[in-house]
C-alpha cells in the first residue's frame, strides 16, 4: 500500500466510525423525530447540517474544476453566484413562513395550502428531483474509492450505501442532522487546509480568497500565450443574457429544492429558521469563496507543470489520473476520449486554446481538480487522505438528506395522507424506514450503473425546481388570493414547458442550439416566469380560497403562537 492509500484508509475508517457512533446516539422512535428531528435542532447546528446537505459531491469535487476548465474562469461564476444567491431568497421569502406553517414536507405545504391534486404533483416532482441527485452522489462515492483505495467502484458504492443505511434508517432526520454537522466539519477542514497551504506557498498570503488575486495577471498572461481567452475576461464563452438566465435558474432553483426547504422545518422556531438560513449560507460561503481560488491556483500550476513537456516528463499525478481515464486527449468525432498522445509529433503534449496555431492535445476532467490539488501542490500524503475523506463526507451527507425527502414523501404524503390516514405512529415509522431502505437500494443501483445523462440532468433539476415549486410557494405565502387551480395550472405549465424544452434541446434530438440561443440550463428562468403568469391569471378568474385559508395565510406572517396555525397543526381542515 502506498502512503496515500494508508492515510486515506485511516481517515475514511476514522470518519465512518464517528458517523456510526453519532447515529447510534441519536436514534429516534417517533415520526416527528424521524421527519424533522422533533423540530428541536439549534440554529448553528441546523445551519451546518443544511450546508453539508447542500454541498454535494458536485460542490466538493467538481465546482473548482468547472470554474477553472469548463468555465475558463469568469463563465464559472454562474455556479458561484447561483448556488449561494438562492439562500437570500430562501431566507427572506420562504424559510420563516414555511416554518410557521409547520408540517413535514413541501408536498404537505402544497397539499394543505392548495389541494390534494397539487400535493400529488408536488410528490412526484420531489421524488424525481431527489432520485436524480442521489444517483450522482453515489457515483461520486465510487470515484473516490476507485482512485484512492484501488477498490472497484461497486464495492465503494455498496460500502457507502451500508453506512447511509445504518444512520438514516435508524436515526431518521435526527441521526442525519447530527451526522451532517460532523460531515460538514470534516469536509470544510479538508477543503481549507490544502487551499491555504497552496496559497501561502505560491503567494505568501495564507488567505486564499485574497491570495488568488495576486496570480490572476500571471494566469491571464499564460492563457493568452496558449491561445485561451483571458481567465478574468467576461462573456468569452457565455453571452451576457445567458449568464443572467443561468444564474437566475440556479438561484430560484436553489430556493425551490425540496431537500433544502425541508431543513427549515427542523428549526426550533421562526426566529431559529431565519438564523438557520444565515448560518447555512455562512458555512456554505466558506467553501464557495475558496472554490474559485482553488480553481485559479490549480489552473496556474497545471499549465506550468504540463506545458512543453513530453509524456515521459509529466509529473506523477498526471500519470495516475491518466491511468484512470480522467486526463485524456481531446474528444474524438464519436465522443470517445482517447488516451493522451503527441498527435502532431512535435515531442511535447500541447495544451492550447482556440486561438493557437497548435492543435490541443489534452483534456482534463473537471472532477479531478480538487482531488488532485494536494498532489499538484506537492502537499504530503495525510492531506491527500483527508481530502478523500472530505469528498466522501460531502457525497454521503447530501445523499442522506435526499433519501429522507424520498422516504418522507412516500410515508407521509402518500401512505399516511392518501392510503391509510388511521395509521399509528409505529406503522408510519415502519413505512418510512422501509421506503428509506428501498430508496437506498435504488440509489445504489443508479450509482453503480449511472444512466449516461445523470450529470446533465442534475444541472437541469434546478431549472425544473425553479419552474415548478418556487412561484407557487412564494405566491402561496405572499398572496392570499392565490387559488388551488391557479397553483396547479401554474405548476403544470411551468414544469411542462421547461421539461419539453429540455428534452427538445438535449443532444439526442439534435436541437442543441435551442430557441434564441437559450441554453437548457437557463430555460428554468423562462419556465418560472410562465408559472408566475399562469398562476396569477388563473387565480384571478377562479373562486377565492376559503376565508379560513386566507386567515391562515395571514397568520403565518407573524411569529409566535396564533390560533389558526395551531388548529391547522392539529389536523383541522381549513378549505
Amino acid at each position: 500500500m502506498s502512503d496515500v492509500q494508508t492515510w486515506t484508509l485511516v481517515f475514511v475508517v476514522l470518519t465512518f466510525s464517528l458517523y456510526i457512533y453519532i447515529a447510534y446516539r441519536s436514534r429516534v422512535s417517533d415520526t416527528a423525530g424521524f421527519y424533522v428531528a422533533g423540530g428541536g435542532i439549534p440554529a448553528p447546528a441546523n445551519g451546518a447540517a443544511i450546508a453539508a446537505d447542500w454541498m454535494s459531491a458536485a460542490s466538493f469535487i467538481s465546482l473548482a474544476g468547472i470554474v477553472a476548465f469548463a468555465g475558463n474562469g469568469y463563465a464559472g461564476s454562474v455556479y458561484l453566484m447561483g448556488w449561494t444567491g438562492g439562500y437570500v431568497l430562501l431566507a427572506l421569502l420562504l424559510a420563516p413562513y414555511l416554518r410557521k406553517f409547520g408540517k413535514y414536507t413541501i408536498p404537505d405545504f402544497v397539499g394543505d395550502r392548495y389541494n390534494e391534486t397539487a400535493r400529488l404533483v408536488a410528490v412526484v416532482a420531489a421524488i424525481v428531483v431527489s432520485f436524480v441527485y442521489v444517483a450522482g452522489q453515489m457515483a461520486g462515492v465510487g470515484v473516490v474509492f476507485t482512485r484512492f483505495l484501488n477498490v472497484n467502484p461497486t464495492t465503494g458504492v455498496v460500502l457507502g450505501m451500508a453506512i447511509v443505511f445504518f444512520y438514516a434508517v435508524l436515526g431518521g432526520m435526527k441521526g442525519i442532522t447530527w451526522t451532517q454537522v460532523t460531515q460538514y466539519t470534516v469536509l470544510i477542514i479538508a477543503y481549507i487546509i490544502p487551499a491555504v497551504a497552496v496559497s501561502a506557498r505560491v503567494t505568501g498570503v495564507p488567505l486564499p480568497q485574497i491570495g488568488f488575486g495576486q496570480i490572476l495577471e500571471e494566469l491571464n498572461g499564460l492563457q493568452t500565450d496558449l491561445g485561451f481567452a483571458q481567465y478574468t475576461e467576461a462573456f468569452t464563452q457565455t453571452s451576457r443574457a445567458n449568464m443572467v438566465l443561468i444564474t437566475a435558474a440556479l438561484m430560484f432553483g436553489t430556493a425551490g429544492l425540496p431537500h433544502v426547504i425541508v431543513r427549515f422545518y427542523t428549526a426550533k422556531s421562526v426566529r431559529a429558521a431565519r438564523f438557520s438560513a444565515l448560518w447555512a449560507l455562512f458555512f456554505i460561503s466558506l467553501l464557495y469563496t475558496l472554490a474559485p481560488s482553488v480553481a485559479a491556483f490549480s489552473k496556474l500550476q497545471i499549465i506550468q507543470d504540463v506545458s512543453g513537456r513530453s509524456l515521459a516528463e509529466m509529473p506523477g499525478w498526471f500519470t495516475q489520473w491518466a491511468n484512470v481515464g480522467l486526463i485524456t486527449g481531446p474528444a474524438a468525432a464519436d465522443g470517445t476520449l482517447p488516451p493522451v498522445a503527441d498527435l502532431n509529433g512535435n515531442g511535447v503534449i500541447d495544451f492550447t486554446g482556440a486561438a493557437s496555431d497548435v492543435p490541443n492535445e489534452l483534456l482534463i476532467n473537471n472532477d479531478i481538480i480538487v482531488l488532485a490539488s494536494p498532489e499538484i501542490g506537492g502537499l504530503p500524503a495525510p492531506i491527500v487522505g483527508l481530502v478523500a475523506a472530505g469528498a466522501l463526507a460531502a457525497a454521503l451527507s447530501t445523499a442522506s438528506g435526499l433519501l429522507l425527502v424520498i422516504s418522507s414523501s412516500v410515508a407521509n404524503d402518500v401512505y399516511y395522507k392518501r392510503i391509510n390516514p388511521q395509521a399509528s405512529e409505529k406503522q408510519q415509522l415502519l413505512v418510512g424506514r422501509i421506503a428509506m431502505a428501498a430508496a437506498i437500494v435504488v440509489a445504489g443501483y443508479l450509482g453503480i450503473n449511472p444512466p449516461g445523462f445523470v450529470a446533465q440532468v442534475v444541472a437541469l433539476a434546478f431549472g425544473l425546481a425553479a419552474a415548478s415549486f418556487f412561484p407557487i410557494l412564494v405566491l402561496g405565502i405572499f398572496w392570499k388570493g392565490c387559488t388551488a387551480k391557479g397553483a396547479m395550472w401554474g405548476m403544470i405549465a411551468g414544469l411542462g414547458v421547461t421539461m419539453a424544452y429540455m428534452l427538445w434541446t438535449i443532444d439526442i434530438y439534435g436541437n442543441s442550439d435551442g430557441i434564441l440561443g437559450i441554453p437548457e440550463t437557463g430555460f428554468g428562468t423562462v419556465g418560472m416566469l410562465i408559472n408566475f403568469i399562469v398562476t396569477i391569471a388563473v387565480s384571478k378568474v377562479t373562486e377565492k380560497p376559503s376565508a379560513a385559508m386566507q386567515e391562515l395565510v395571514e397568520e403565518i406572517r407573524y411569529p409566535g403562537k396564533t390560533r389558526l396555525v395551531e388548529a391547522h397543526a392539529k389536523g383541522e381542515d381549513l378549505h
Partner: protein
Amino acid sequence: MDDRQRQEYWRRNLRLMAGLLVVWALVSYGAGILFVDALNNISFIGFPLGFWFAQQGSIIVFVILIAIYVWQMDKLDKEYGVEENETEVHHS
C-alpha cells in the same frame, strides 16, 4: 397585535425585504454580470473589480444581507411583542 399593528409589522417587513433584494440583484446581476466589463477596468486588491464581484464579492454580500435581515427582524419582532425565546418549541 391588533389588526393595525399587524399591517404595520407586515409593511415594515416588506419594505426591509424589498431593500435587501434590490442590493441582492445589484451585486450579482448588476456588478457580476451586466456591468462587469466596465468594473473590470478598476483594480481591487489585485482583482479586476467585476470579476471579483462575480466570484467573491457577491457571495460575501449575500451573507451580509441575510445577517441584516435576521438582525432587523429580531428588532421588529421585539418592537411588536412577537419575539420568540430560544426554548419555545411549538411544532406541529
